[in-house]
Structures are given as structure tokens and as C-alpha cells.
């Protein structure tokens, strides 16, 4: 009897919750499931390994060990032209790239969400003003400006790089959130909240924001992948992180030397593969989330 009651309670709340929908979507899409588990483990492993590793030791120049081949002398992935351990550099570089991408995603995400909700909720003049500012930022040639700024700034490090990229990354999120907040903010439950005497701030961030969470998760996941790409791309071009700080981009940058490119594959190939795996994996996860957020595209 007890058992029966429990069953009844279970069936009563029939529409699946958000997490159940996402889980079902991942179960249907084995690739996304595999990517999600793989990426999570990979990132955790990289971050832990980077903490254990002695960075100074890794970056110490040992000219005698120049271009050591993989597997020789305890160099798992060989050494570069200065005799630095490629495996250690790969881990530290990946950690740097991922942390930078996460920081950019979080900062640009918070700015974009806050602005987008304010624009969508109030509409009118505020909306128009910020939309024109966004249009202005969108038309700027991002890469050129970042390169110019990087060259001009005298002291230049990780934090400066994060801020510069962030300045050009908040618009997409802001526009997306704005369009959704615009429709969500005209819904009855917002008016109902107002008739309860709820302040605008509470309505925006306690009422409307949770209702945008599905598109936000998708947007932030995909922009995380994009940000990894932007940082590595800039570093590859030599305008990202300074050479003293390894990142996936600086490692790939070694391939600009024809000798390295043609004969010393172990210097650049692992970093390139890691970028590929990261980007693909995050994108598969993001796409599965996107399908879960939109009932029409769902597989499960």
C-alpha cells in the first residue's frame, strides 16, 4: 500500500524537469554524452596536473636537451628548441587557455546578461541607446583593435588580455538576452509581479532571469568554445599571451618554424590536437544543450 502511494506521487508530476530533459537528450546523443564526460575529465585532469607541476622546472632552458624526441630521457612528449619539456608546457598552456576562456566567458556573460535584461525589460530609450552602442561595437574590426591595443599597452599580461577580449565579447550575449527579455518582460507574470509591489530589480533578476536560463547555458557553453579559439588564435599570431607564459596558441606558434613543422611534429601536434578536441567536444555538448532547450529540435 505504502509502495503504491509512493508510485502515485511519482507519476503525478508528469512533465519532465529541465535536468531530465537534458539527461534524455544526452542519452540519445552518444557523441555529446561522450564529449561531456571526456571534456569534464580532461579539464579537471589538466587543472590538477597544472597545480602539481613545477612551472619553473618545466620552463627551465636546457640547451643540451634540444629537440629531444618523445619518450627519450623521461620526456613524454619530447622537448622544444630550448630543451623545455613539451608535456609540462602542454599542461600549463592548456590550463592557461582554459582559465582565460572561462574568465572571459564569465565576465562578458555577466555584463551581457545584466545589460540585456535591463534593455529588454525597460525598452524604449535605454534599449535604443544600448542597441546603438552594441551595433557600434559589432562593426569594429575586433582582431585589428586587439592587436593595436596589445602593441600599445606597456605592461601586458594575462589580466589585460582577458579585459581586452572581454570588451569585444559581451555584445552577442547582451543581444540574445535582450531579445528574450523583451518577450519575457511583456508576459503576464511580470505584470502580476508588479501588482504585488515587486521592485523592478527583483522582477528582472529573480523573475525573468531564471526563465532565460536555458538559452543562457547554451550561449555561454558555445561562447566558451569560441573564447578558447580567440585566445589561442591571438597567441598563435603572437599578440596573445607573452612568450614567457605558455598557452595552447604559443605552442602551436612554434610550427611557424619550417624545420619544426616538417620534422619536429611533437612540438606542435599535441597542442593542435588538444585545441581540436576541446573545441569539438564543447561544441557537441553545446549543441545537445541547444536541442534540449528547444522542444522542436529535441531528439529524446
Amino acid at each position, binding site marked *: 500500500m505504502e509502495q503504491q502511494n509512493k508510485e502515485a506521487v511519482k507519476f503525478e508530476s508528469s*512533465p519532465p524537469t529541465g535536468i531530465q530533459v537534458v539527461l534524455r537528450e544526452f542519452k540519445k546523443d552518444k557523441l555529446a554524452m561522450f564529449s561531456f564526460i571526456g571534456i569534464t575529465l580532461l579539464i579537471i585532469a589538466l587543472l590538477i596536473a597544472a597545480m602539481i607541476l613545477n612551472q619553473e622546472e618545466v620552463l627551465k632552458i636546457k640547451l643540451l636537451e634540444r629537440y629531444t624526441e618523445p619518450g627519450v630521457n623521461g620526456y613524454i612528449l619530447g622537448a622544444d628548441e630550448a630543451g623545455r619539456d613539451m608535456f609540462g608546457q602542454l599542461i600549463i598552456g592548456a590550463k592557461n587557455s582554459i582559465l582565460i576562456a572561462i574568465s572571459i566567458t564569465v565576465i562578458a556573460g555577466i555584463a551581457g546578461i545584466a545589460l540585456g535584461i535591463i534593455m529588454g525589460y525597460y525598452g*524604449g530609450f535605454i534599449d535604443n541607446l544600448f542597441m546603438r552602442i552594441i551595433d557600434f561595437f559589432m562593426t569594429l574590426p575586433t582582431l585589428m583593435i586587439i592587436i593595436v591595443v596589445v602593441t600599445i599597452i606597456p605592461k601586458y599580461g594575462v589580466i589585460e588580455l582577458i579585459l581586452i577580449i572581454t570588451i569585444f565579447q559581451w555584445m552577442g550575449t547582451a543581444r540574445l538576452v535582450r531579445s528574450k527579455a523583451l518577450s519575457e518582460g511583456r508576459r503576464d507574470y511580470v505584470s502580476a509581479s*508588479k501588482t*504585488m*509591489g*515587486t521592485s*523592478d530589480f527583483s522582477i528582472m533578476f529573480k*523573475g525573468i532571469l*531564471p*526563465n532565460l536560463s536555458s538559452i543562457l547555458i547554451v550561449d555561454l557553453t558555445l561562447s566558451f568554445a569560441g573564447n578558447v579559439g580567440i585566445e589561442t588564435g591571438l597567441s598563435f599570431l603572437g599578440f596573445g599571451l607573452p612568450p614567457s607564459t605558455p598557452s595552447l596558441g604559443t605552442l602551436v606558434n612554434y610550427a611557424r618554424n619550417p624545420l619544426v613543422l616538417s620534422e619536429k611534429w611533437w612540438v606542435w601536434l599535441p597542442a593542435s590536437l588538444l585545441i581540436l578536441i576541446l573545441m569539438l567536444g564543447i561544441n557537441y555538448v553545446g549543441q545537445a544543450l541547444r536541442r534540449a532547450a528547444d522542444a522542436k529540435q529535441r531528439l529524446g
Partner: protein
Amino acid sequence: MNTAKDLLTIRNLTTSFRIKDEYHAAVEEVSLSLRKNEVLAIVGESGCGKSTLATTIVGLHNEINTKVTGEILYNNQNLTQLSEEQFNRLRGNDIGFIFQDPLSALNPLMRIGEQIAEGLLYHTKLTKQQREERVLELLNQVGISNPNRVARQFPHQLSGGMRQRVMIAIALSGKPSIIIADEPTTALDVTIQAQILDLLKSLQSETEAGIILITHDLGVVAEVADRVAVMYAGQVIEEAPVQELFRNAKHPYTRSLLNSIPQTHDENDKLEVIHGMVPSLMNLPREGCRFSARIPWINESLHEKKPQLHEIAPGHFVRCTCWKHFHFEGEEGGGTV
């Protein structure tokens, strides 16, 4: 018309919407009053300005696209002059609002308990535990049998009737002296409608609140209202106590509305309709009797040039003089009534 007992007094209220840089009045020169412990029904077709009137009272229109003139007096305060902050102190506490569609008026991602407690959070100094107790009490009051479970559920897990009960609980949370119900039964089926109306009535007798009930269902009006204001094209065209209105309707529009209630005793009976439709906001004739276009068989000269409300019996007001000569199409015009 206005006595000291009035809870809410609306004087010459005009709400205009901006369309292509021109203001068009959706509610025009409306004067009404609501007394304590009274149900004032506002009836009319869709597009007559009923809901606009209701949302104007609680200040839901933004200042960018709407212009509100006139007075809404409550406790010696003019609601149209209040700042957002002052209004927030009043809304949810003194004035409760019940929406038409309870599903869209509840936040889909907030538990029922939290949504009811929201008003308490802003208007009372209750502790978290006291608020929870009050939520259960409110849910009990609106006739929900297992408040403990419902408080933890989300809106999509409830049935339509239960959602509307929750909406009523929310409106009641601040112990309001005025409840505005904007077509509270439209989204519900007939049996639930009756339950909700009974609930509203019994709650009113408990709390002695004044209720403004907006509806286009004359059956609902007959059931619960004490006084009725009929609106057409933004104006009040007839106002009377409910008995008087059903027995002695005067204005052609009111009579046409009553005439178009389906009769069930004769299956060959044709459903009476009112010709044409409510003119849209931009094409509204601003002069003369607004209903004249839909009763073309009545001679133009019988309408007033500038129709005013005339008190024809104690508490019974009718706009325009055309009612004196009105007859339905096909009937013989009988001179003066």
C-alpha cells in the same frame, strides 16, 4: 455620486495609447466609484477598454506609450500621481489583482509558495517561518486541500482551477481592501467558474473588500455583482444596480447585450447578435453617440451631439438620449419609450 464611504473613486479617467505619435484614448472620461463590501462589475465586449481601465488603476502602463489623465482617489491619494516606489508600497498590500489567464500570470520557474510569499516579503515584517505559515493559511483559505504539497509545486503541475485559486491567494496575501479581478473565470471551464465565483464571494464577505470584477459574461454579473457599469468604446454608457440593470436596461448597447444571451428553451431560436464590431482605437468616432454606427436603423437625429450620462433613476445612469427611441431591428419603432 461620490459619497464618503467610497473606497475608490475614479474621476474623469482617460488612458491614451500612443500609436504613430498620436494619442488615442482607450478609456475616456470614466468616472466610477467602488464602495466597501461591494462587487462592481464592468461589462462590455472585447476591446471596450475594460482591461485597460483595470490595469490603469494598478499603474501597469509605462509612461513611454501611455498617457493617463484624471484622478483615481484611494485613501486621499491620487494613484495617477504616485511614483513607482510609492505605488509599490500600495500594490499587493492594499490592492490585489487577479489576472485572466492564471498560467501565464504565474512565474513558471517559481514554486507556488514562493510566489505567494513574494508579496508578504515586501509588505510585511514577518519572518521566513511566519511567511510560510501564512502561505499555507492562504492556500487553505482559497480551498486547496493539501497546501503543504501545493506550496512546493510549480505552476505547470497544477490544474487550471487550482492555478486560479493560487492567483486569488496571491491577491489576498496583503489583506487588500480592493481586489481587481480581470476576467478571472474566462480561462476556466463552467464548473470551475462557479467554484471560483463562490470562492470570491465568500472571501469578500469575510474580508469586506471591494471587488472590481471585469467580465463579458453577463451570467457571472447576475451571479455576483452588486452594481454594474457597462462600457462601450472606452466610455461608461450605463451604470446601475444589478437588479435594475437586468430588469430595466435602458441603453441600446446594454439591451443588445442582454438580447444576445443565448436562450436555451427553444432550439429553433436564432442567436441574436449585435451588428458590426467595436471600432478599433484609431477609427473610434470621438463625437456623437459611439454606438450609433451599430444601430443604423435608429435615426441620427435621435442621438445627442455630445452624449452625457443622465441619471434616470436613483443610481441608474445612461449615456445619450437615443435609448428613449430605441427598438430592435425588425421591431416597430414605438415612438418614445
